[in-house]
């Protein structure tokens, strides 16, 4: 510590003996740091937006099914509604919302055409706690309650069926006893948005569909979402322990594309960090090698005066630590000043519709980076920068005092 107190001021002053070179290096490091943090926040915003958009359609953060349902989503693979411990977990503070559904393959038939679809019947009130679909009505309304006899379909499906709001359509599906059940629904709502995947679904209230299919109070699935700050994996572990015979999966299994997007985005940030670090390291090493070369005699003088080679290494390493540390601090400050004003959302404006195709819905992105990631990335860049500078530091420590003092 005593040596640090002696050498740190010398190291700091040495940085400013060539202000232009130091400023250039600071710019390189700070811009690199700013870009890593800002890119991380923006990528996280896109990933979160995409993930939320995907999960807030039908997936939720987790689902409960009867065994075998995911491989064969048929009416025979149904289960009872949640009860007991499972119900207690779903109603706990770790879960923001949950909804039971019937989801079976069906055929929808209009006056002109018919199409294969997936019939989804749910409790409309509960559905709003795990899905954004109820809020995506373009025309008409969403379902009112569990006994509503209306049907909600997507805009594009309506166009393909050549039907519209207020028209009757027939929905046919296999009932629990195996016969083909059919029911005439009135279209009460048309979904908007650009989620093409929703065009393969039709939405009804739970009670009429249970009656149609002879399911009594059985359901096909329960979808749930974790509360902010809660760990979805913990919720799933608890559910699995409470209901070992049921098939309980997280969104990573149910929505592999969203999971892949998250992994890929982390890899992108990692690759960018690597590229930025290599560029910064080149700048840092070049700066410090030049500084060591220019100060060969001075470094020899230090040893001649009685400073141990280790202390010479420490001096050069300290200079690098101060240089990189200052650049990292500046970059982190600029990144904070960039990200903080966007915390209420970056309006995508005219790009919103294009980006929605990539799942970034809502017209806004919310750049975000956790405090731990912010500090971890900053610390990583600083440590890597200091490590890179150990090479010129070792070169400095190996200088022979006699050779150094005779250096021109």
């Amino acid at each position: 510590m005593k040596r640090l107190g002696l050498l740190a001021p010398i190291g700091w002053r040495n940085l400013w003996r060539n202000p232009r070179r130091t400023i250039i290096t600071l710019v390189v490091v700070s811009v690199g740091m700013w870009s890593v943090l800002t890119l991380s926040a923006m990528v996280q915003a896109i990933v979160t937006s995409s993930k939320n958009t995907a999960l807030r359609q039908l997936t939720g953060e987790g689902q409960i099914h009867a065994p075998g349902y995911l491989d064969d989503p048929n009416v025979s693979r149904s289960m009872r509604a949640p009860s007991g411990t499972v119900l207690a977990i779903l109603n706990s503070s770790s879960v923001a919302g949950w909804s039971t559904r019937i989801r079976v393959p069906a055929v929808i038939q209009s006056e002109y055409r018919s199409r294969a679809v997936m019939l989804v019947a749910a409790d409309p009130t509960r559905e709003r706690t795990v899905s954004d679909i109820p809020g995506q009505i373009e025309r008409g309304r969403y379902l009112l309650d569990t006994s509503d006899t209306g049907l909600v379909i997507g805009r594009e499906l309506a166009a393909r069926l050549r039907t519209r709001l207020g028209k009757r359509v027939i929905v046919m599906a296999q009932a629990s006893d195996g016969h083909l059940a059919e029911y005439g629904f009135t279209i009460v709502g048309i979904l908007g948005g650009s989620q093409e995947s929703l065009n393969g679904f039709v939405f009804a209230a739970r009670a009429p569909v249970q009656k149609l299919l002879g399911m009594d109070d059985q359901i096909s699935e329960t979808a749930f979402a974790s509360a902010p700050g809660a760990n979805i994996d913990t919720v799933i572990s608890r559910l699995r322990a409470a209901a070992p015979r049921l098939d309980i999966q997280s969104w990573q299994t149910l929505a592999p594309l969203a999971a892949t997007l998250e992994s890929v985005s982390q890899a992108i940030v990692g690759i960018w960090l690597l590229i930025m670090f290599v560029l910064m390291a080149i700048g840092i090493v070049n700066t410090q090698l030049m500084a060591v070369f220019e100060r060969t005699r001075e470094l020899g003088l230090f040893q001649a005066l009685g400073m141990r080679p280790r202390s010479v290494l420490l001096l050069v390493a300290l200079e690098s630590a101060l240089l990189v540390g200052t650049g990292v601090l500046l970059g982190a400050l600029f990144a904070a000043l960039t990200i903080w004003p966007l915390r209420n959302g970056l309006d995508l404006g005219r790009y919103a519709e294009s980006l929605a195709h990539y799942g970034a819905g809502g017209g806004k992105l919310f750049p975000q980076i956790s405090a731990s990631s912010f500090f971890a990335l900053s610390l990583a860049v600083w440590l890597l920068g200091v490590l890179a500078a150990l090479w010129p530091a070792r070169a400095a420590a190996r200088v022979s005092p006699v050779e150094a003092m005779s250096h021109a």
Partner: protein
Amino acid sequence: MTAIVSCRALTKTYVQGTLEVPAVRHIDLDIEQGDFATLAGPSGSGKTTLLNMIGGLDRPTSGEVIVDGTSLAGLDNNALADIRLHKIGFVFQTYSLIPVLSAEENVEFILRLLDVPVDERRARSREVLHQVGLAGMENRRPARLSGGQQQRVAVARALGPKPAIVLADEPTANLDSKTAEELIELMSGLNQTSGITFLIATHDSRVIAHTRRHIEMTDGRVTLDERRNRAIAA
């Protein structure tokens, strides 16, 4: 008198390819405590090489150097650095101050390496700066000091830790006549008043005139070792 430095059969041979170049040949020499000695000779005579070996900056090919009772033979780089720190003061020809430190900080630098407490080292640094005639210039950095003033700071820094010996290599080489004269008179005065031992490598006749012991080297050998009752220049 006590020998501060003893050289026994000291030899240094440089190898350049297949050629061996002897720089110092089998020197036996004692520098006594209180000596104010010059080490003179033409370029290539080996005086700087000898000074470097005495100061632990260079290792002899054979022979031994004993500084203030400690043999430098077999010491590693850290131990040699410690010897230089505790026992030897250096004044070099050029570039001998740390440019980012003020005069006082340059003197304190050695004292801080010796872990001298802050109050003591401040008092000592001001004392030696006063001794070399630089009172009032403590806060000036080398760039704001003349060549002569910089060498005075170098002398002050060398004296700060009260070393066993001060080794000076051509300290007046880059100074004008008047400044060189003042510097050597300063060093001579310090030797007489404080009893500090000086060994000065030089071919400056003005410096030689002030010494009471004059050693000459030629082709790596001591050819003259003359003690005078008094300096030629008073």
